[in-house]
């Protein structure tokens, strides 16, 4: 059962049971964006308040599995109040964690791992997901939706 505990780390279950930044923001001024995973029917809805190049507030609703919902919650805590360029970097780093992880691990795993952990903080709890390829889409749904929302605002 070690694999499973890698996937469902305590932090993840905690964010699933008590999601942070859950709810809606009035639109306008907030921007609303919706993400959808046709394979499992999960969705996330993200509300974004951007001012002067800073993501001042973010809220999430939607329904889905522990991975997609905790990922959204973890994401919101990681990017809330941050300047947009930093948000973008976090998105990029997270995407790398999800897609490039296995291949970079096989070359010089330790170093990459450390870098991820340093940059990502709590988000690193999601790295167990890469061992479960079908769940990667669950973990990335919120992030793809966030990026889409930011693009729509740009």
């Amino acid at each position, binding site marked *: *059962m070690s*694999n*499973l505990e890698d*996937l*469902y780390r305590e932090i993840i*279950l905690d964010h*699933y*049971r008590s999601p942070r930044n859950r709810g809606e923001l009035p639109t306008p001024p907030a921007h609303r964006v919706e993400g959808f995973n046709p*394979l*499992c*029917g*999960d*969705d996330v809805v993200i509300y974004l308040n951007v001012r002067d190049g800073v993501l001042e507030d973010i809220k999430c609703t939607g*329904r*889905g*599995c*522990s*991975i997609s*919902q905790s990922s959204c919650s973890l994401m919101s805590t990681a990017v809330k109040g941050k300047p947009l360029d930093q948000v973008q970097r976090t998105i990029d780093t997270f995407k790398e964690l999800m897609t490039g992880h296995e291949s970079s691990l096989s070359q010089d795993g330790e170093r990459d791992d450390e870098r991820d952990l340093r940059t990502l903080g709590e988000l690193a709890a999601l790295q167990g997901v890469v061992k*479960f390829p079908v*769940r990667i889409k*669950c973990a990335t749904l919120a992030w793809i939706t966030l990026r889409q929302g930011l693009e729509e605002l740009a």
Partner: protein
Amino acid sequence: MTSFSARRVRADVPQLTRVVNGRTITYLDTASSSLQPRAVIEAMSRYYELRHANVHRGVYQTANEATEAYEGSRASVAGFIHAPGGAQEVVFTKNTTESFNLIAKSWGAANLGPGDVVLLSEMEHHANIVPWFQLRETTGIEVRFIPVSDDYRLDLNHLDELLQGVRLLSITGMSNVLGTKNPLKELASAAHDVGALIAVDGAQSVAHGITNVTELDLDFLTFSAHKMLGPTGIGVLWAREAILDAMPPFLGGGGMIADVRTDGYTPARGVTRFEAGTPPIAEAVGLNAAVRYLEGLGMSDVVAHERDLTDDALTRLELTFDGRVRVIGPLDTVERGGVISLDVEGVHPHDVAQVLDQFGVCVRPGHHCAKPLMRRFGLAATARASFGPYSLKRDTDVLLEALEHTLKMFG
């Protein structure tokens, strides 16, 4: 249950000895696709080893043998569903989905126009919805749905009204989400009373019930080999001979023509008109083996066995979890098959299936290609366990053990 033995069936299915995550597999995903007994796998291997050749038009021995094997499968299938016109009414497609597309794009496009109604139900699989939506785009037909009641059965209270203007009632024999079996004979007669035809989605019901199209008085029936112990890559469309004869071709190509000139073509007659290109030959051989295997078991024994398992599972789910695991489907086994959709309190079906996998338990999370039904019950997904002839109560034991662990983990 004279000679039927689920244990013996189990011993015939190689995959059921597999060990997954340290445990022997507990396969509870037969509604998605069934596992194949050795007889089916070996029939196909032997076919490839001994007599593979393209069918029809061949004169040499193996081509004759391949043709006989292919056409023999057609006859077997016709017998299995009691087709009144025999093999001449059985078209091989690639799956149930293609069969419905064939009905919609050939019969539907030729016979339906603006205002004509195709009546479905809210518990249909996408295979019996999307082709009708596509037809609606091109012909302006109306697509209407029979509602599903809170007891997970068709709400037939307003059937008369719903049937107004209906040219085709297309409905599932058994829901792949709820397990509900629909009253096909009554529905056929109601449809015929208003001059409509009836098409039945047999993807589940043919594999888990007795299907007698003559007695039920059906007009079309669709199903897939891979859900009835057979191989992937082949499905069936059965239709009454008179209906088939009047249908225009579907896909165009070799085998479905009588003549091709540079200025036009003449379609062939008979079932080959609908089988363009090299058909799934080895798959037909596998399907024939599956049909013979099921006939050997006896479908009434299969049904009784699966009812037994379902009854036991429904009872124990209720006793063990006291409402924390809710069954989305009828709670008794009256007109119901062995498909049990679960809603586990506080745990998303994806997570349920993931935890169960650690116990070697195979259940399927998701909308099961029945999104309108999911919406009807306010669900995004369920975790679905389903039985086959090889299932045992032992499978339910492991399912319950794994569900307890799941609830603990997310509790």
